[in-house]
């Protein structure tokens, strides 16, 4: 499984990538949307984990751009913000979209990625 992590928080995304790598997942990370768009040119990813709120381009916009380039790519949205609009947008953006709230539980993230790859129906748990 090849994963691209996109988040403007370098500290976060680098540590996350390393943790995934330790679990045998091929995880790349970038801090800007443009880097992400560039990175997919040179490498194929099965799944992208995108922060919803990023400077210059939102995760949703980025997802659209990435999908153009890699139609088979799955997406998981991560947010530190609780805005309902973001969430609603994320839901409508992709049928197979997944939505996680920071701070992440590494195991949950891995489970979601596996589900996404298997193309299971999106479901979200009641967040409390």
């Amino acid at each position, binding site marked *: 499984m090849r994963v691209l992590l996109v988040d403007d928080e370098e500290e976060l995304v680098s540590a996350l990538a390393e943790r995934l790598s330790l679990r045998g997942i091929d995880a790349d990370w970038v801090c800007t949307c443009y880097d992400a768009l560039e990175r997919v040119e040179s490498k194929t990813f099965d799944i992208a984990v995108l922060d919803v709120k990023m400077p210059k381009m939102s995760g949703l916009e980025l997802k659209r751009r990435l999908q153009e380039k890699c139609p088979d790519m799955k997406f998981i949205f991560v947010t530190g913000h609780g805005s309902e609009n973001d969430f609603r947008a994320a839901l409508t953006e992709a049928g197979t979209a997944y939505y996680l709230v920071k*701070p992440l539980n590494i195991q949950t993230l891995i489970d979601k990625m596996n589900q996404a790859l298997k193309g299971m129906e999106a479901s979200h748990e009641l967040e409390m």
Partner: protein
Amino acid sequence: MSIMSIFERLKPDFWDHGDTDQERFKHLFNFRRIWKLTVALTAGVALSPVISMAVFDYNVTHDAMESEIVLRTSRLVSNSRRSVSFFLTERKAALDFIVHHQTVQKLNDSAVLTELLDALQKAFTGFTDVGVIDASGRQRTYVGPFELTGKDYSDQEWFEEVLARGVYISDVFLGYRQLPHLVIAVKHNLPDGSFYVLRATVDTKRFNDLLSGLQVDGGGDAFIVNQQGTIQTPTRWHGKVLEKMSLPVPGYSPATRVLQYQGVGGKSLVVGYAYIAETPFILMIVKHWDELMKPWYKTRKELFAFLAASITVVLLVILGVATYLVNKLHETDEKRVTTLHHMEYSERMASIGRLAAGVAHEINNPLAIINEKAGLIHDIFILKEEYAGDQKLIGLVESVQSSVERCGAVTRRLLSFARHMDVDIRPVKFKELIEEVLGFLGKEAEYRGIKVNVEVWDQIPTIESDRGKLQQILLNLVNNAFAAMADGGRLDIKVYRRSAESISVEVTDNGCGIPEVDLKRIFEPFFSTKKTKGGTGLGLSITYGLVRELGGDIRVESAVGKGTSFTVTLPLKAKQRKRLDT
């Protein structure tokens, strides 16, 4: 039942209103004062004409009655005086006629005199005897039942008076037969300068009949006294004939007069009297004031009864109307204040929501970084051989992770309060929903011996709402109730139709209750009474958020020591509500 407890039952809602003045939104009015003012003013305006009319009428009729009594008495006295006067004058005139018609020689003939007495007795009743007295005072001839011929009257007072005035009418006296009599004497001058006196005794029976035949109202009677106050004719109340009467002798007056006396025993008497000219007599008519006033007392009683009834009716109407109106006013103002409270509360919740969201956002990112870094350290300790094995460090980092997990839970809850995930509206059957929720908590209830009673009205329709959120709401409320109750408590869940568009779910426990001070803040985030037991203070605030999300409303009633009741009212069709943080 005491007066106080009757008052407590009748007391309108606004009566104790003054107590809530210290609250934030004041009522516009002092209801008790308005009520008192209204009652006092209307009662004053309505009753004063009634009362003054009654007082006026009382005085007028009273005065009219009094003057009527005086007038009637006065008239009766006048008429009676005329009768008495006429009676005496008539007899005097008869004697006058005789002395003018007969010569003294004829009168001294006892046969003629007998004939005359006979004629007098027939024509004018009451004559007992008649006698002729010469200038020396000796009775020359006498006809009558006694042997009075030759009696010398020269030294008697009456003889002197008849000489002086030409006529004399005596007081009543007891004659030889012990019967009251009076004497009438006339003097006749003879051509030779000498004179004689014709003297007749008149029985007072006629006199008495005349007076006792009078219709005297007011339990009174009519009688005659002489100027010394000696009773001349029988009276019912004021003494015996020829004794002093019990009343003082009224002062001389040429005309009829009416006076008021305090009689024996403090009874008020009306005394009408008249001095009968040329006689020693005073005609008295004495009536009892109370007797005379009896019809008036009756009228007065009726007047008072009518007045009391009018006042009662007017007061009742005024009290009723004033209470009704002020109550309405109070209700309206109460609604206004409640709305203000509600608005303020919603407003506060909204701003707290915004604040919570802001804080959560700001904390979440660094928290996520800590999470990942700690996670990485943990991973390294576990997954990389060169770092493996230091259990102490693993323990430390795990503790960091679990703390981050806890922080994360708090920020998620805060965000959850501020906004919610999508509302997923589907038909929901309440009965099933409650069963599901109780499924989660059934074990706890069983273990703690809590009796759960579910009552869902048959008519509850399937509602369109978010099942997950409803579950969460119910779960939170039931959880709260469980926390508030001691083992062996009782929980009631009631679902009923509120209106055409809404249903209500009532969750009632018999737990410890919530103090009134806390009730106002209970839906605020981080407000917890269970802090020592590990509550975050977010449960009810989230519940509140969820209910609002579904377009509903949540209310709480509680009594310390008795229990708490949460009522969630939900629309049959959930509407999308505006978020709290927009």
